[in-house]
């Protein structure tokens, strides 16, 4: 197992390197640049614009720019934000906790709700509730996150005034922060929850038809024990893989949720950095999310092996 983890960690290096090249190209190749925002200004001459580009090192060939960036990121220098001249690491680190809090909370909410729902529909539910839940979870994965957010704000913040319409709450006041976190976390959790529930449902259905489940039932084990200990443990194996892929998806949802609820996280940082083409901040934010995704995938693969005794990592 130790060797497997080490090998996967080593394998993550070329993967992240590839991602960084891909990202660098996608972000830098489109025409235009950070100086564009001054282009319309009457006081900025063409020479000024050229000087801005020169100072930012944007006149170098792209591969040179990339190598400079890569050397920086490896030595802990992620560059400087074009907007306020602060280090990118500072700009990202001050936003990271908010995003992680939002993502982790909604992931937990999604799992806590999805597991019983998926198991219920695959085992005890009769036709009608199963049908209703099928329709509801399908709606859940079909509704755009930003719209759920807008509706929640309109109704619960506007009409009823139960929740604040945005922000993170007063620092230090845990209750107030939880109050602010509740709505965005639930909104973000909805899509994942519905997806997980559907996935667990079909995974459980498949397992419940296995011979060993019939054996367990036949030897008189209580239904509850069979469902949780025999069926769910096996059904959860593909779900773990899904969890590994969930991080980038949650990141996408988080961006939209953060914008709707004025949540000061990485997603908002990305939308703020689009205007003015804040290349270093964008690169940093995307690399961080890719890094989290790669690590998440690795953890999922390791858990996959821990849960599934059929897999031996050391040959």
């Amino acid at each position, binding site marked *: 197992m130790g060797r497997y983890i080490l090998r996967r960690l080593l394998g993550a290096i070329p993967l992240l390197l590839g991602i960084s090249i891909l990202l660098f190209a996608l972000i830098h190749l489109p025409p235009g640049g950070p100086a564009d925002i001054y282009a319309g200004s009457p006081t900025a001459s063409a020479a000024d614009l050229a000087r801005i580009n020169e100072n930012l090192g944007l006149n170098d060939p792209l591969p040179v720019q990339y190598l400079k960036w890569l050397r920086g990121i490896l030595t802990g220098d992620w560059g400087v934000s074009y907007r306020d001249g602060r280090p990118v690491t500072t700009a990202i680190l001050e936003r990271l906790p908010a995003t992680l809090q939002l993502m982790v909370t909604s992931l937990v909410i999604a799992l806590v709700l999805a597991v019983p729902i998926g198991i219920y529909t695959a085992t005890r539910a009769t036709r009608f509730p199963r049908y209703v839940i099928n329709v509801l979870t399908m709606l859940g994965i079909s*509704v755009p996150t930003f719209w759920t957010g807008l509706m929640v704000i309109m109704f619960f913040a506007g009409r009823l005034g139960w929740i604040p319409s945005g922000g993170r709450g007063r620092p230090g006041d845990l209750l107030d922060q939880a109050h602010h976190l509740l709505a965005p976390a639930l909104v973000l959790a909805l899509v994942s929850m519905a997806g997980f529930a559907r996935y667990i449902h079909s995974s459980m259905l498949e397992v419940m038809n296995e011979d060993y489940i019939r054996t367990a039932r036949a030897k008189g084990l209580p239904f509850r024990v069979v469902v949780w200990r025999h069926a769910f443990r096996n059904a959860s194996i593909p779900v773990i893989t899904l969890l590994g892929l969930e991080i980038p*998806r949650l990141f*996408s949802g988080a961006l*939209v949720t953060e914008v709707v609820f004025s949540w000061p996280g990485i997603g908002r940082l990305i939308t703020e950095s689009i205007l003015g083409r804040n290349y270093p901040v964008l690169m940093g934010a995307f690399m961080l999310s890719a890094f989290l995704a790669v690590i998440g995938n690795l953890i999922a693969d390791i858990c996959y092996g821990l849960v599934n005794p059929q897999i031996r990592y050391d*040959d």
Partner: protein
Amino acid sequence: MTTEPSLARASVAPPVLSEPPPAAAGVASIRPVGRNQVWRRFRRNPLALFGLAVLTFLGLGAIFAPVLAPYDPNAVNPYQALQPPNAEHWLGTDDLGRDVLSRLLFAGRVSLLVGVGSAAIAVVIGTLLGAVAGYYGRWVDAVIARLIDMMLSLPVVPLALVISAFTQITPWRLTLILAAVSWMGVARLVRGEFLELRVAQFTEAARSIGTPNLRIIFVHLLPNAVSPIVVAATLLVAYAILIESSLSFLGFGLQPPTASWGNMLFNAQRYLRNAAWLAVFSGVVITVTVAGINFIGDGLREAIDPRLKDR
């Protein structure tokens, strides 16, 4: 089991969104199913039929928008701004006095076309890359599999957001961008299928009589993988429509005056307090469309592989 679970599970990985796994063995597709049989099973699924009906309805609405729309979707009329739904304007008017119903109909053209178009392109890209990777194996597979892994590690919405914000966005470019960030699911799926098909006996037979590789890929193997691709393609349309609406909602999708369901919501969020209908209607239309397509996809999957059906 192999030592590389990230590759081994590619064949049982979900195509797109959070769809249930194909059969654990991952060979669901090799069993041929008659087309009539599929339709007969599909027909018995009320939700799938409902999805089909909704989509037909919206599709017809989009196609015949110029005939059906009661008003010019871009006609500004400040005297009638922000009217709630009434007899003259069934779904009310927006901040510039434009008729919401007319705009929804015309927006449907753009949103559906972009959704279907980008899904089609994504399926072509995904199928080609997946087939080549699965069939040739070795370094070709290694390169493509890594590319898939890389793209899957990036968050789709922020990525599409940045690319479209940095480009002069047109419907066609938006379609390409959406395709570029959503082909990976199909590629993984097709790759998994081809990894199994390439060692099938009929493949060996074809190869032994000297059939060219490309002919084997497209004539002999691809038809065996069509069913899961069709299901994945359907779900991709739903996915693309969702992403398009997110981008437009954030203000970086299609630019006004072109109406899309997403950018109508972008406008609507400023009037949540006094003109709630603006935000409600376009959101409902997006949700119903996406759900309709998802129901069709689900129905197709169950019709193609009845073992997955709710028992």
